[in-house]
């Protein structure tokens, strides 16, 4: 088993940082998706002769510190963006990136990314790698790693704290997400449930939940004409809870109320996403619950619907 000592992690990053830009995502409020789908991104521009072309690609970069939910979200995003048609801009950035995860939890398999450091106690991390990019990085920097039969350390992953903590919430949410088919069934069933009226009142439609969700990827396309007549096309993050999301020229809005738009957010995450990919578009990271100004807790919403579903259906 390949291990790395925590003292060697920073020198390792210094070494791979010589050829790429390093980002540590552990303290970011906005999830890692911003490195692959930036909040605003120029996608096309026109030169003086009128030829349309897309901007140059970014350079190589390394993302470090993704958690288990984030790694899973990345795997799902890769799947979503590669299904026909392939999203050119996402995949172009994805190709340039080396993604490194870190976790205290026990792993049985590689959850996603190129390299994962899994804590095995006493400052040692077991090293998982996947794909050519991950394996080659390890091979070319072998001096930072040690190959051992057994670390000889008895390691117990940290206990999940009881009560209303982020870790506890995330743990329970990930348990719920083990049965995405059930979640799809109950969210679809709950369309006329009173809770959506309630949430429509409570939600202020700010869109924060979608911006901080690692699996919200919807965007709108926007054109600009500069003062010097430079024309370009941008895409920027959109949020399905915002009023103009389904509004067309002429003024008709296909989802005019916040209740409809909020339900659509859930519907996409748990029903449409499940029908398309067999998984909920949620990894239980807890960001939406943590940062919602109206303190909406999606786990509680799902629980409530689930209880009523069992009673009535």
């Amino acid at each position: 088993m390949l291990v790395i000592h925590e003292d060697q992690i920073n020198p390792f990053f210094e070494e791979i940082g010589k050829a790429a830009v390093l980002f540590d995502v552990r303290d970011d409020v906005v999830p890692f998706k911003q490195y692959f789908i930036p909040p605003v991104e120029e996608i096309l521009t026109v030169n003086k002769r009128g030829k349309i072309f897309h901007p140059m690609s970014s350079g190589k970069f390394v993302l470090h510190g993704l958690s288990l939910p984030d790694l899973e979200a990345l795997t799902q995003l890769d799947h979503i963006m590669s299904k026909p048609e392939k999203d050119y801009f996402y995949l172009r950035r994805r190709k340039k990136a080396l993604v490194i995860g870190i976790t205290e939890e026990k792993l049985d398999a590689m959850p996603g990314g190129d390299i994962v450091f899994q804590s095995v106690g006493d400052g040692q991390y077991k090293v998982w790698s996947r794909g050519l990019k991950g394996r080659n990085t390890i091979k070319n920097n072998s001096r930072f790693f040690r190959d051992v039969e057994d670390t000889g350390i008895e390691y117990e992953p940290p206990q999940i704290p009881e009560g209303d903590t982020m870790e506890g919430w995330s743990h329970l949410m990930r348990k719920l997400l083990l049965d995405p088919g059930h979640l799809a069934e109950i969210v679809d069933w709950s369309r006329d449930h009173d809770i959506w009226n309630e949430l429509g009142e409570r939600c202020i439609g700010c869109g924060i939940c979608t911006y901080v969700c690692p699996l919200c990827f919807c965007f709108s396309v926007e054109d600009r004409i500069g003062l010097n007549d430079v024309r370009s096309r941008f895409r920027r993050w959109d949020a399905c809870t915002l009023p103009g999301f389904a509004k067309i020229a002429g003024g008709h809005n296909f989802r005019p109320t916040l209740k409809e738009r909020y339900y659509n957010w859930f519907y996409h995450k748990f029903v449409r996403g499940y029908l398309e990919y067999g998984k909920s578009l949620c990894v239980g990271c807890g960001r939406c619950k943590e940062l919602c100004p109206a303190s909406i807790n999606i786990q509680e919403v799902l629980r409530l619907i689930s209880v009523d579903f069992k009673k009535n259906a």
Partner: protein
Amino acid sequence: MHNIYLPHRAQVIEVEQLSPTVRLLRLENRGMPHDDRKLFFIPGQFVIAGDIGFGEAPFSMLSSPYQKKFIELAVRKAGIVTGHLFSLQKGDTVTLRGPYGNGFPIDFMKDRDIVMASGGCGIPPIISLAEYIIENRKRFGNIFLLYGAKTPDELLMKDRLERLQRHDVSILTTIDEPFPGWNGHVGFVTDLIEKITINEANSVAVVCGPGPMFKAFEKTVKPFGISDRRIFISMERKMQCGVGKCQHCTTGSKYVCTDGPVFTYDQIRNNWD
């Protein structure tokens, strides 16, 4: 890797004023491959047209898919993109992507009677379909086209409708309210149903109208007694990417851009949005 968001340019070869707010743009056909049937697209499919600096929007093709030299789009002045397209002259260029979407299931329609219903500016894909049908007229049953608008001016492309009529397509038009000089039927498209008889067991219905009129069309087509699976509706939604990524055009569990824009009625009957 192919960049799906990169459009190509097409020149406007002719502009025709169809009504005070609607213009027809005839665009040179470049960059659109044809399939085994020598079709450049299937009637009911759409392109995303616009210009850089103004944005883009989806438009169903109006011309016959057999037309090799050009494609036609009808543009109603409503917002920024359509406002720009409306102002274009012969020789200007637009950007195009596509064709996208599924189109009408024309093979399924063979040997059946077809009732097409359309209101206002929902006529383009219907004309395209009808012009496909008259090229293969013997393979289809009786064809009816019910078409309604607010005023006689807004009944678009009367010359093309007359040509369809010459090829054994029954055209029934109506306007919403009495209008000086109009001798035809007055009322909604709904009323025209009573004027035709079809064999509902071997018929299909094709519906295209603006989004808000969707409910009204339930009244138009449902009374025929055609099964929900043989009613084809071309849907309209806000659309940005056209390829199933941006999430704007969803209706229930379907994407209008990739699963549609043509749906059978039973696919969308229970959708809340």
